[in-house]
């Protein structure tokens, strides 16, 4: 017997989150981000129903509240009109990698527009 590693614990949390887990989809979409009075554009690196990873020009401060707007072009998900997802979350991690800035957020609330 032994204790779970962080990875194992994360996996168990995902498994235990219900019959389905919050899978991260590698979808790349343009996103408008507003945080701490700063507004900028970014691109999603991956996205799940509970969080997202943004690639952006500036690093967002960890812990800051984020408002985001993701536009889904017409025809992408079965609609002939443009759709959008407006959401609010919190930055849990920001880092630089290979010359790019990344900010990971947890999503607190969202709605389609």
């Amino acid at each position, binding site marked *: *017997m*032994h*204790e*779970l590693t962080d990875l*194992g*614990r994360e*996996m*168990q949390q*995902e*498994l*235990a989150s*219900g*019959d*389905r*887990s*919050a*899978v991260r*989809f*590698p*979808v790349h*979409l343009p996103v408008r981000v507003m945080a701490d009075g700063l507004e900028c554009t970014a691109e999603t690196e991956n*996205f*799940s*129903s509970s969080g997202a990873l943004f690639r952006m020009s500036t690093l967002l401060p960890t812990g800051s509240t984020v408002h985001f707007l993701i536009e*889904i072009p017409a*025809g*992408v*998900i*079965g*609609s*002939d*009109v443009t*759709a959008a*997802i407006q959401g609010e979350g919190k930055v849990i991690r920001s880092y630089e990698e290979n010359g790019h800035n990344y900010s990971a957020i947890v*999503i607190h609330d*969202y*709605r*389609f*527009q």
Partner: protein
Amino acid sequence: MKPTEESARPIENTETTQVPQPAADTPPAAIRILLADSQAIYRVGMRKVFALESDLDVVAQVDTIEQLFDTVGKYPADVLLIEGGLLSGSSRGIPEIVQLAPGLKIIVQTSANDEAHTVELYRRGVRGIIPRSISPDLLVRCVRKIAVGETWIDNQSVNWVIKAYRSQASALTNPRSQPRLSPKELAIIACITQGKRNKEIAFQMGTTEQVIKNYLRKIYDKLGVSDRLELALYCLHHQLDKPLNSEQATAGIPVPIK
């Protein structure tokens, strides 16, 4: 303790229900344990094992799952030690316990392990699975570990859980595993991603809200998603517009649902 009358009754120990004191010089609160086992000999044995430990208190014990449902709300506990046999024949056992007492950490005692059962137990929120033949020392150690939020799992079960995790994740992101959606289902998805409420979709399609809910549940089950955002992400990832455009349905063209 008399094994004959052990039905959902508290153990006489006033310390078990006390609120932990925050002062630094006071000992930490005891771990409150709830025992659920159909066999009196196991309940008696485990109580004796825990009685030797000052930090472990058995607050109640039951011998059926129905008694357990009644008890979890009445006697707050940190850890539930339940015989696996009490859960057999019912899929609602663990989810109902979790719903009744979200903070309760569950350990299941089983006489035999199999992959599907083990993965399902961990998936449903169980923190540890131990054999019926576990030694007293290991049992005490397991309860302490789980009470502080850790997980108790053997090497074989780790492999089973990892395998289940990988297959679950890949099934959702693998385009080859796309289930077929009907034009009506695709039309409903299009409406969802435009931010329409079920009532609005029902009105647009000339049906009732309940019918839309039923369709939505079926779509969620087919795609393995859990909410509207995950549904939209799934569609984005799999580009579900392609089959839709090849058929007649779009959000702008109401599709009658009978």
